[in-house]
């Protein structure tokens, strides 16, 4: 048991350090480690787990929590979660602390200004990729566009918009409008 927990830590802690820009980038490597190298799960189990993590609320990287749960029960889940989230927590905290202490220094303004377009590009790219991968045909695309307009122009509660999106697609399916 102890060695399984240690393996979980040894697999996920290094991954947390190369997770830049978004957790999705590391999924291929997680798959390789979990299915091929350690054979903790079959490829099909991994796919199912990935699907649940994508559909659940909260950070997508909780995929790792589910893997830990499957491999090592309660403590497996705890160790895997800490391994993917904790090692880099102090880094961003240190940066946030420094930023708070020294407002307006040149070494702050340069990364703020320099990273802004890169971050905007990454967020736009993420939206584009998600949009292209939508299930549910042009109904889903219409929901996404309508939701974008609603979120940009109004103060509606996002949860309400999301529930409506789910209801509309269900209704379309039920009425047989989805081919």
């Amino acid at each position: 048991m102890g060695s399984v927990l240690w393996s979980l830590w040894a697999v996920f802690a290094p991954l947390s350090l190369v997770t830049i820009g978004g957790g999705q980038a590391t999924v291929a490597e997680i798959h390789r480690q979990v299915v091929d190298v350690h054979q903790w799960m079959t490829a099909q189990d991994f796919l199912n787990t990935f699907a649940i993590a994508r559909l659940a609320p909260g950070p997508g990287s909780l995929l790792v929590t589910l893997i830990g749960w499957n491999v090592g029960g309660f403590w497996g889940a705890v160790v895997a979660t800490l391994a993917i989230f904790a090692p880099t927590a102090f880094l961003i905290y240190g940066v946030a602390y420094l930023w708070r202490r020294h407002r307006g220094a040149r070494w702050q303004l340069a990364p703020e200004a320099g990273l802004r377009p890169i971050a905007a590009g990454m967020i736009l790219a993420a939206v584009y990729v998600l949009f292209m991968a939508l299930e549910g045909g042009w109904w889903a695309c219409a929901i996404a566009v309508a939701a974008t307009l609603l979120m940009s122009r109004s103060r509606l509660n996002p949860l309400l918009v999301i529930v409506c999106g789910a209801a509309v697609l269900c209704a379309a399916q039920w009425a047989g409008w989805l081919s």
Partner: protein
Amino acid sequence: MQTHDCGGAPRPTAWRLFLFFSRIGLTSFGGGLSGWLFREFVQERAWMSEEEFLNGLSLSQALPGVNVKNMAIWIGCRLAGARGAAAGFMGIIVPPAIFIVMLAAVFAAFNKYPLTNMALAGAAAAAIGLSASMAITAARRVPRRVLPMMFLAATFVAVAVLHWPLLWVVLAEGALSVAIEYRRLGCAKG
């Protein structure tokens, strides 16, 4: 110290922040967590300015670690110091982690109904709206100069169209872009 470039709204306590992050972590079906945070902290409650939020978002994406977790720590630290950072970290991770384990058990039972899948696909489609409206704000806030616009376009093409690894895109373009801004700021001063 108390005058960040943020509105005069009263600051939340660490405990309240924990409850906020938990609620967002537990209700953000369909993804788009950063969009939720933007909505709640900037647009709804005005606890942070757009500027402050986007600075944190840029750093969260460029630094190693899961973005959403970085962003929760950034917001928590900004609003309530070290205790706030801990509250953000715990709130965005622990309740959703417990929930996802329970969900995995329940989901196995519901998986066979196609309507469940449609509901989740519809939620994901609507959740794009959150991310997209934040993306529009972020893009509008990029300075209208040639180089930043080029960096924006290059990042988008590299990631969305060419599917280059994010790590290298951020390291290479980020270093170049920050270096250029550092020089520009030096010139402006001298």
